[in-house]
């Protein structure tokens, strides 16, 4: 488009009064703020952000809201186990085969999912971005080696790997996170690398090199802020991925047996009732997984427009 190439329609902002300056974090600060703004502008992105916020609150305050404990057995006043009760005032989402309150389980299960989602997404993006930055910036042998490694990791099927790994190193939240991080960094690093490859050739990078900037400075102060949109995009995908992965692993009975999670609720349902499970037992946790994953996807889709301006509606 002709008129997008030149910036002179935007010069009005020159006339805005300017206040004091922000410190050195400014490039990052501005980048991050821009990203959030753009996601908020997108309808689906906004829905995603609201949903995500809701689940974070649930994870934080779950224990204060949940009426029963996760593994607490509920008894009727006359001392009978409340097995497979359909929804009622006492148990809005019914009870399980073991007489546990589904609502409480769903609320309390949020925490592990959110922790796994965020921690592993953060680790994935930090690892993947740094590998991508180093590969793309230095090229040559380092790049070759790390990219071959990426290719190899691309050859490893995630879930089978996670199953085998967990069966070897033992069940637990950390095992799940390790399994996710060991595999998922590959796509982030590959995408970031290709972005860096083109960024490093941009004159503004050359300009600071001419001024004598060190490699570290060039990478982290000049290139990195420009790949943030991409890193954010992959972070949101990584959240979606990690949540789904956690659910799958827990569903296969490989989660931490002492910590409730949505996948685990479904695991017990499938274990005891198979496909004849009652709806109140399997619908709520499934819907929660779906909504959380979807919120991350929606945010990611809104980000994609930052990373790829062609997709932006004009």
């Amino acid at each position, binding site marked *: 488009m002709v008129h997008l190439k030149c910036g002179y329609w935007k010069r009005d902002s020159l006339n805005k009064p300017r206040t004091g300056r922000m410190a050195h974090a400014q490039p990052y600060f501005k980048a991050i703020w821009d990203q959030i703004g753009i996601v908020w502008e997108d309808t689906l992105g906004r829905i995603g952000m609201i949903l995500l916020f809701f689940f974070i609150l649930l994870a934080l305050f779950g224990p204060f809201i949940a009426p029963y404990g996760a593994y607490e057995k509920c008894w009727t006043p006359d001392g009978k186990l409340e097995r497979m009760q359909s929804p009622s005032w006492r148990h809005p989402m019914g009870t399980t085969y073991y007489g546990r309150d589904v609502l409480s389980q769903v609320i309390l299960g949020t925490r592990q999912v959110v922790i796994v989602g965020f921690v592993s997404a953060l680790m994935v993006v930090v690892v993947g971005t740094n590998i991508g930055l180093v590969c793309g910036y230095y090229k040559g042998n380092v790049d070759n080696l790390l990219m071959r490694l990426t290719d190899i990791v691309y050859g*490893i099927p995630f879930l089978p790997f996670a199953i085998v790994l967990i069966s070897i190193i033992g069940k637990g939240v950390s095992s799940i996170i390790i399994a996710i991080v060991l595999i998922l960094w590959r796509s982030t690093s590959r995408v970031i690398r290709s972005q860096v490859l083109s960024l490093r050739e941009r004159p503004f990078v050359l300009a600071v090199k001419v001024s004598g900037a060190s490699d570290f400075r060039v990478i982290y102060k000049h290139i990195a802020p420009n790949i943030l949109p991409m890193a954010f995009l992959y972070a949101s995908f990584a959240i979606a991925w990690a949540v789904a992965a956690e659910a*799958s692993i827990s569903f296969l009975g490989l989660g931490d047996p002492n910590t409730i999670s949505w996948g685990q609720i479904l695991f017990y349902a499938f274990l005891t009732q198979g496909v004849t499970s009652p709806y109140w037992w399997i619908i709520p946790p499934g819907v929660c997984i779906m909504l959380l994953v979807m919120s991350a996807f929606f945010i990611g889709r809104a980000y994609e427009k930052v990373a790829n301006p062609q997709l932006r509606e004009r």
Partner: protein
Amino acid sequence: MRKFLITRILYMVLTLFVFITLCFFLFRMLPGDPTALVISPSLMPESQEVLRAQFGLDKPLHIQYYLYFKNLMKRDMGISFIYRAPVTKIIKGKILNTLILMGLGMTLCMIIGVLGGTVMAWRRGSKLDSGSIIFSLAFRSTPIFWSGMLILLLFGYKLDWFPVGRMHTPGYGAFNIWDQYFNIDFLKHLILPLSTLTLYYLAGPLLVMRNSMLEVLHADFVELAIAKGLHPLKVMYHHAARNALLPVITLTSLMVSYSVGGQVLLETIFSWPGMGKEIVDAVNSNDYPMAQGAFLFLGATVISMNFLADVLYCYLDPRIKYGEE
């Protein structure tokens, strides 16, 4: 082109090699006695001795590694504790079950994704477009085991339109491969898992095709094609879609890798007798030779599919075929 292929083949072999090595070390990280890997505690002491010698478990690590490779070349992956039969034999009986379900699912995804994505990009911003985005993303967000459960619950259990899980009606004995896969009974069992699989993975190719199509539609060569006075359909398919297809091909290899994971869950839910269900069962019953065999096999599938996608990409993109200068 030839140079590209040779390097790709070398890479594939390298990747396979590293993967197999990784597998060796992974399974030797097992807590406790490494013999647990190949020797079932329920075996007779004499046969335990035989196996110990065969796998050289009394020898140093590098010799074990050599033996591991040698046995692998001879297609000997040990004996399953549960089945009490060679792992290779069990895998052989289940390979096709997995590959057929997965292959059909991926093919369907690709075809629907590419055609649908093109239409969505064409009608960008329409109800059809945004509806398809939300629909496909919703399915992509639904865990495949959960949607599988719901589908089974609804169409199998409640409505009783389709059988509830498995690949054949119990008691069905197939005489040959033809008989196993080309009959109504199999088809009936296939429909539910196949649609679950397709719906789950559809979002990938669909959205990538749509986005890449939108990008290509702004390309200068598309503008020139319009200026040439070509029919819109020709512009759309001969120029735009043909170029937009390339990123989708790249996606295929990723999708195969993901879908192997999905296969594990799907086969568990639908009691589909394939490798995915096998690896879960094996892990749950500490049948390590079986788990290792299944893991090796699934990894090899992913690696070879990645290779095939690379070759296809090379075939479709002349810039690689005829060497970028």
